[in-house]
């Protein structure tokens, strides 16, 4: 692997950039692997990388029905934060945050992790109660998250409208300074390059038709468009398509897949220094390094794998942005797109072993998977390598839906009374 650096860049410039090597080869499947990972998004590629780097398991294939990073990894609004309420969630996402810190150096690929701060707006008494609960819980969990007055919030994010007579006035905000954004494609490419350099095969445009199980019920491998590939361990990290893949192994999942839309504005000079989220009006916004305002929308109400999504949702999202940031009303939407997110009943992921020998899953990240990318990859690799969950992902089992030990971040946000 050619080491990337300013020097390498300089050297190659002088030779007209003719000598850059390909970042990852276009691998063809071998007959057998120790581990097959289904889904070449950030999570799956990350798992492959950590399997090779930390567990010495390099005979690994990452298989995707399309191009790597072409799913939610390349379609999200790149928000990274860890200020979750429950201890389990806070640890899970903070673990990811720790890995984000040095990811560029670790991968020798600049993923542009930008600690610009994520600010969540409170608009009513109920929001205040809920955010304070988060802040205090985070503080005692060692997760940074602090309370801002509306005035402080405006100082931190000048375009913010803190007028008292707004329909949804800003009455305060919770700020996680260590949170921010990263360059989503670079995360997938960086993991792919680093994993490939350690011997991992990345097999693109190779749909998995079924997970094959033996008479003893254990996993034998996967049937793909390029034939049967043998492996005693298969880890499914297929986001919106998880239900479909797991069905082929005879497992029905507590998942539903919904279209999630996002959009960007035309690029403008820097005006928006941080990330702002308002769950109450459903507005999620930051400004990319290219200058576009990156805006997250909600999910459509119905289960769907069509990456289309309707106009009404976009209308509402943009209206919400203009409500909180009235100066953006004359800005223009440049592009909108859709992804497919897999949602669990308690809005928390499932990351661990399945009741089938040799089968592992990483799914249910809903609208928040990107922020967890390094953590999910790291923990999935651990779980696969050791055939037992890491303490951090131990609570995120499938069994919790049987016992009732849910980790319900959505419910914790609760509803106004």
């Amino acid at each position: 692997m050619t080491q990337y650096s300013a020097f390498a860049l300089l050297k190659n410039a002088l030779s007209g950039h003719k000598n850059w090597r390909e970042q990852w080869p276009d691998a063809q499947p071998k007959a057998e692997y120790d581990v097959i990972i289904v889904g070449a998004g950030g999570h799956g590629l990350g798992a492959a990388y950590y399997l090779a780097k930390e567990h010495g398991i390099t005979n690994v294939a990452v298989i995707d029905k399309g191009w790597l990073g072409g799913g939610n990894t390349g379609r999200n609004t790149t928000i990274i934060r860890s200020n979750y309420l429950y201890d389990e969630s806070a640890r899970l996402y903070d673990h990811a945050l720790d890995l984000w810190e040095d990811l560029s150096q670790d991968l020798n690929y600049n993923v542009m992790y930008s600690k610009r701060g994520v600010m969540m707006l409170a608009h009513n008494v109920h929001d205040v109660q809920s955010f304070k609960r988060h802040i205090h819980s985070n503080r005692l969990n060692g997760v940074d998250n602090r309370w801002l007055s509306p005035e402080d919030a405006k100082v931190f994010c000048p375009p913010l409208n803190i007028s008292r007579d707004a329909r949804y006035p800003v009455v305060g905000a919770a700020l996680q300074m260590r949170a921010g954004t990263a360059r989503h494609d670079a995360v997938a490419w960086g993991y792919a390059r680093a994993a490939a350099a350690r011997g991992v095969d990345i097999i693109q445009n190779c749909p998995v038709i079924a997970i094959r199980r033996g008479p003893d019920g254990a996993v034998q491998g996967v049937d793909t468009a390029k034939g049967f590939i043998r492996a005693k361990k298969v880890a499914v990290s297929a986001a919106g398509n998880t239900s479909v893949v797991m069905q082929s192994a005879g497992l029905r999942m507590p998942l539903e897949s919904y279209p999630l839309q996002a959009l960007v504005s035309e690029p403008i000079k820097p005006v928006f220094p941080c990330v702002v989220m308002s769950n109450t009006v459903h507005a999620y916004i930051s400004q990319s390094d290219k200058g576009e305002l990156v805006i997250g929308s909600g999910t459509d109400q119905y289960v769907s794998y069509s990456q289309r999504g309707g106009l009404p949702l976009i209308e509402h999202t943009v209206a919400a942005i203009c409500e909180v940031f009235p100066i953006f009303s004359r800005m223009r939407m440049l592009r909108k797109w859709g992804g497919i997110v897999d949602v669990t009943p308690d809005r928390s992921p499932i990351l661990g072993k399945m009741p089938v020998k040799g089968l592992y899953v990483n799914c249910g990240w809903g609208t928040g998977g990107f922020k967890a990318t390094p953590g999910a990859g790291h923990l999935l690799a651990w779980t696969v390598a050791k055939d037992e969950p890491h303490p951090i992902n131990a609570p995120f089992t499938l069994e919790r839906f049987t016992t009732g030990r849910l980790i319900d971040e959505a419910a914790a946000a609760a509803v106004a009374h």
Partner: protein
Amino acid sequence: MLLIHCPYCDETLPEPEFTYAGEAHVARPADPMALSDEEWRDFLFVRSNPRGTHYERWRHINGCGRFFNAIRDTVTDKFAMTYRAGEPRPNLDALKEAAE
């Protein structure tokens, strides 16, 4: 914005008049207390979430107010048909043949 046919109003109307109500034919067990924890979990949480034909429920909440069933392709979002609550799950293949 989808167009949805309400089997009670017998009109095809825009999505804002409707709300989605989840997978269809997930009937509440007659005697929940007789179910194992696993069976109860399946009723509560496990869904088929198919890529393709989906049997689902909608409510014409801003219309006649009725819940009804629909068959929709989750890849194209096209509705194959809608039918009244309580009616048995139609055999889609049979319907397709009939159509041809």
